[in-house]
């Protein structure tokens, strides 16, 4: 029986704690280097460490594949992961929902902002064809989806938000080297706040290194990571619509 209060890695026997590691040390291969790799692995909390493979991968680097048994366990009961609270709807349900509740198209701007040049994520969510058989937002009848592409300055995003009276902004950030994504994402939030737009739009960020927790911390409404498809994002947007139809309200009051 698995003890949920003390979960350990499984190799071929319960609680054997088996872990595989691969890493490089910036030293030439030698017996001392192998021993260094072993000791290092021991200090990571692994026991019965075996250096399965050691190879010099240049004059000045050595590569190791190491196995060891993890001496720690983790208590599942003490873990809580903030996730986007979401009832996932089908494409048709989403379109129907917008038609009946909003009575106009839902306007969505998407962009890969600032320095980031990788459109894979935003395209997977927005392009008609979508990804992996999940059609993108452009294919939804009741969504007016504008994909601005890559390397879009925050200023341009904001300009577009005004132009199409966006209900939601979808931001993709793929490159995270040296935390550049934090800088970019923060910049956009700051600018939206300065413009008084932050409360008028649903702000969503996605990317392979993005978590919902990080998104909330940065002032976004939701964060999506890998294995997210257009219907997940769209379901979140429509559920937010109930709370926010600010552009229309503006029209009524002005």
């Amino acid at each position, binding site marked *: 029986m698995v003890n949920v209060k003390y979960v350990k890695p499984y190799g071929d026997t319960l609680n054997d704690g088996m872990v595989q590691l691969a*890493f*490089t040390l910036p030293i030439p291969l030698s017996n001392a280097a192998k021993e260094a790799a072993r000791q290092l692995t021991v200090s990571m909390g692994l026991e019965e460490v075996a250096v399965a493979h050691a190879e010099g991968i240049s004059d000045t680097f050595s590569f190791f594949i190491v196995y060891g048994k993890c001496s720690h366990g983790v208590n599942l009961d003490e873990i809580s992961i903030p996730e986007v609270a979401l009832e996932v709807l089908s494409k048709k349900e989403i379109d129907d929902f917008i038609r009946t509740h909003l009575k106009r198209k839902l306007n969505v701007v998407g962009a890969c902002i600032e320095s980031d*040049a990788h459109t894979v994520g935003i395209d997977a969510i927005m392009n008609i064809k979508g990804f992996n058989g999940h059609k993108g937002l452009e294919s939804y009848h009741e969504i007016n989806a504008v994909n601005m592409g890559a390397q879009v300055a925050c200023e341009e995003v904001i300009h577009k938000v005004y132009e199409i009276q966006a209900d939601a902004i979808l931001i993709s950030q793929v490159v995270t*080297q040296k935390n550049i994504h934090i800088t970019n994402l923060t910049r956009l939030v700051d600018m939206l706040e300065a413009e008084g737009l932050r409360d008028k739009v649903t702000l969503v960020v996605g990317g392979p290194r993005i978590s919902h927790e990080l998104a909330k911390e940065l002032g976004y409404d939701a964060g999506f990571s890998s294995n997210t498809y257009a219907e997940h994002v769209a379901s979140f947007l429509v559920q937010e619509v109930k709370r926010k139809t600010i552009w229309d309200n503006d029209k009524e009051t002005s």
Partner: protein
Amino acid sequence: MKKLKLNQDVIDRGRKHAKQIVDQVHEHIDAHSTVAVERSVLRLLGIDGVDQAGVPLVNGIVEELHNAGVLGKGVMYWFVNGLIHTKLSSQQLAECIINKKIRLLDLPRVSDCEIEEAALQLATCSLEKIKDRRQEREAWIANLGKGQEPMLYVIVATGNVYEDAIQAKAAARQGADIIAVIRTTGQSLLDYVPYGPTTTGFGGTYATQANFQILRQALDEVGKEVNRYIYLTNYCSGLCMPEIAVMGALERLDVMLNDSMYGIIFRDINMKRTFVDQYFSRLINGYAGIIINTGEDNYLTTADAIESGHTVLASELINEQFAFRCNMASEQLGLGHAFEIDPQTPNGFMYELAQAQLVREVFPKSPIKYMPPTKYMTGNIFKGHVQDTLFNVCSIMTGQSLHLLGILTEAIHTPLIHDRFLSIESAKYVFNNLRGIADEIYFPEGGFIHQRAQEVLEKAVSLLEEINDVGLMRALTLGYFADISRTSEGGKGLQGVIVKEYSYLNPFIPLMLKGGNSNG
């Protein structure tokens, strides 16, 4: 090598349409210059350095003339007139202009004839340096040899040029034949080239002349050690495309990413700007004996690889014609494509084989650049390693030339040193084990691969016919490539396009056209 029994008439028809498409665009190209072309001219004259604010001298000089509305004569006209009057060196004159000691427009003008003669002499002399670098490369290769095809092509991308040099050398020792230093994200949209050695970049390292030099030196060192000339690659793209070509030619780069349409489609750079910039950049690359790589592989990251396979071939034929207009040789055209079919597709590998063999046969003399899977790579690095292995097998079976190695951690981060090692090791294993396999393979007539190849070829030729009818600029607006639409007035950099006056002076163009195919 001809295994697909392609109808040569169909291929010829495709080439004819591609040529007409390019001829139409050349009416625009021949009538215009750009600020980047003019800055390149100054760089060719040897002007280097930045002002106190970090702005390159060439930007300062060109901008002043552009603002005055006189660049239609060509920067060469004004600058050479300045040289004749001041008797200074190019660099000295450039510094005086930036320090506001001299204003080119205020100087009295000598006769056009005198300027033209001096300009021609200067240009001829400047190109000697590039010719020297080209001959230097040829001597290195004659002496050390180079990697065997498919050449193992890897990327380093640490952000720090000194770290790049360490990783590049390590990769060469592991067996890499070509090293590309990927550029920092965002550089393609800078309208100037950063200066000096750099140690901070994101997802890559700034392309600067100093960085080129540091990498070149590192690869020459390791080349001697491994007894193989190691090719250096960078990215001749974005708003400074032709300037980077100059830098690469001067620092003996061997391969340049240099596509005629990539910037338009994927970086939203204005098409009127890019078409002119790519022309001048390819003149330089051609003259310098550099192999260019085109970017058709990127189409398949946004469009579906099976549905859009023909757009890759059509674009390759267009890229080829643009290069021919610069007198580049087929042997310099690393036309690009990629292994990007959804791994869930039944017979996906056979579609890949058909496409790879097709590209090989349509461009028999060109060093085809083959890109690894990226779109369907995931965090499952073990599966990724297998996907890359299939890619390696496809490459050796179809005789690809420049083989950009797939890395098992493609979907996670820029390669760690042992990611690259594992990748090189497995490609070497596959290539060595299957070295002669291509000679043993025939594809049955009427079989899947034959049929698929014919179908892609025919669709590509129909697409070219259609583009020829509407014109390339309009086709880009209609989203013919990668499902992305761009307008002729939209995008970045249009304000840097200049209408040439009748007397426009740029002796580099005729000189490089003369030498592109045959010098060296």
